[in-house]
């Protein structure tokens, strides 16, 4: 059975917000696996990392498998240390998002995160030979490449994960664009990113929403949703479907995806309900169809 996962929180949510969020996920969200940990900015981790063991335990009690995710960008001494320390953990499973993590992990089992650029069968085969058990494909891959990559990965015994909900990660940088917007730099940011639970909106000068800033990360303005595409993803062998936490009712979002996955909900209706849950944010699936990512393409199969 295809699994639903909850990706790591990309934003600087407070320790308290995280605690409440994961308590509700543990009790109510029909997801199988949850990724924890700071992936975007190493400066944020000290605010909540002491609580990760308790959160992990809470989620496990709720029947969820927990995976710890590593930083996407590793450059500073504290980032190198955090990555090396994570790579030494025997349990739980870890997801690696930077080659520094691969170096530290060696051939011990690990998951490959979405920042690792596992675009093709050759790279996936290489990674599998180095101990990878699972791979999350880059968010910009089109359907045909997803199908081909999935086919090769499954034959090697790997789990394959695709993001099916939430803002797409479009870029990372050494520079913090949240700090920049407030006339600061990364070193004296004063954690201004905490004010934007769903990212800081950028609009074009003719007032069209375009991108979201999340610290050093740039995200899509739209929420990616592949809800209508779930049957095809499942048929192509994708084993794990990732929901990224956004500032919407994530329990309700996960229930919709679960219902479609189990054939309990009609796709068109579920899609409409998802639109209502995400009111005010545009939805997109362009990457999946090999078109501009922000576009929403009508699903030919369900029409």
């Amino acid at each position, binding site marked *: 059975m295809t699994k639903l996962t909850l990706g790591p929180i990309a934003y600087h949510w407070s320790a308290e917000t995280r605690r409440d969020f994961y308590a509700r996920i543990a009790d109510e969200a029909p997801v199988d696996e949850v990724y924890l940990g700071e992936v975007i900015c190493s400066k944020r981790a000290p605010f909540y990392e002491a609580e990760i063991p308790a959160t992990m335990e809470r989620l496990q009690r709720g029947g969820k498998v927990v995976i710890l995710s590593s930083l*996407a*960008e*590793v*450059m500073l001494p504290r980032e*190198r240390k955090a*990555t090396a320390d994570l790579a030494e953990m025997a349990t739980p499973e870890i997801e690696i998002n*930077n*080659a520094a993590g691969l*170096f*530290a992990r060696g051939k011990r089992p690990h998951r490959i995160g979405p*920042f690792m*650029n596992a*675009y*093709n*069968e*050759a790279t*996936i*085969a*290489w*990674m599998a030979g180095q101990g990878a058990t699972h791979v999350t494909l880059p968010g*910009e*891959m*089109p359907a045909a*490449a*997803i*199908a*081909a990559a999935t086919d*090769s990965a499954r034959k090697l015994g790997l789990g394959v994960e695709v993001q099916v909900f939430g803002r*797409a990660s*479009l*870029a*990372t*940088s*050494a*520079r*913090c*664009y949240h700090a920049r*917007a*407030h006339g600061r*730099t990364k*070193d004296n940011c004063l954690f201004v990113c905490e004010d934007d639970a769903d990212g*800081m*909106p*950028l*609009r*074009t*000068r*003719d*007032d*069209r929403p375009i*991108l979201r*800033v999340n610290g050093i990360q*740039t995200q*899509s303005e739209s929420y990616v949703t592949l809800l209508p595409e779930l049957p095809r993803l499942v048929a192509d062998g994708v084993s794990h479907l990732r929901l990224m936490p956004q500032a919407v009712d994530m329990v309700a979002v996960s229930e919709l995806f679960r219902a479609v996955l189990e054939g309990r909900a009609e796709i068109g209706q579920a899609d409409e309900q998802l639109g209502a849950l995400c009111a005010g944010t545009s939805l997109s699936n*362009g*990457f999946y169809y*090999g*078109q*501009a*990512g922000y576009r929403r393409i009508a699903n030919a199969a369900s029409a």
Partner: protein
Amino acid sequence: MSHAEMSLAELICPAGTPAALRTAVDAGADAVYCGFQDATNARNFPGLNFTPEELAEAIAYAHARGTKVLLALNTYPPAGKVDLWRQAADTGARLGVDAFIVADMGVADYIARTHPGLRLHLSVQAAASSPEAIRYYCQNFGVKRVVLPRILTIPEIRQIRKEIPCEIETFIFGNHGLMVEGRCSLTNYLTGQSTNMDGVCSPASDVEYKRQPDGSMSSQLAGFTIDSFGAQEMAGYPTICKGRYTAPHRPDGYYAFEEPISLNLSRLLPELIDAGVHAFKIEGRQRSKSYVRSVVSAFRAAVDDIRAGRSADLANLVALTEGQKQTQGAFETKKWR
């Protein structure tokens, strides 16, 4: 520092066309880098790059003058299309390129196994910004040189140099890449063409300049206004990460990521050489022959002066940016971040 190490301060120059390649060779490049006319390299722009026949002639020209030719295979093949990259590698090997510049692990692994004698350089597109990440590629694929992301300070580069078993190449002049390279899907989000998979960045085919009723000009990419300019201003090219946008705290519009600005590290050359940088890369495969000639000649003279212990005339290099704003980016200070 030993003299042997200093003598490695190579000048790596862009060659978007056979003519530009000959120009760069004649102007004193130690090596030129180029790509084929397809998605296998990160400058897959119309009118640029080489056919296999052109590359064969270019290699003969360069080698006859003691210049190396590096082939960029630095994009990420999407599943199902890996053969195009493998064929490009095989062709490059057959024609006698001196090294491949790679980013994808599958491509690196293929070349390491199939053409074990050939040098591999790790492209900036692999985004290896720590000693551990660099060592991963050295250990597994025998990478001999890493092209560092443009996000490190000189003290950080000096530290990395001590911890890795391969040479370092840094960008020194040209486009100022803002995002972690090889991790940027901004162009694909607006245009449907991918930087990683197609080698495309803010493609000209999607660019439009639109005169507004008030006389202002907006530069657009795929219908999105990336910047707008007053009637007397010169409209800039709509590169997404150099655009002006509004944010809740910036209602008047600001360069959310970076101004249209060009990287110029000429004043830092002596320090970079001292930090152990082996090779200096000039960006600009899309630039004209005359640009290549003036930039390469100026840097040739400067590097030779520094290597000979003379003080280099760095002012000449500063003048090369054609009036554009310049930056030393992340290299000089952490405040850039």
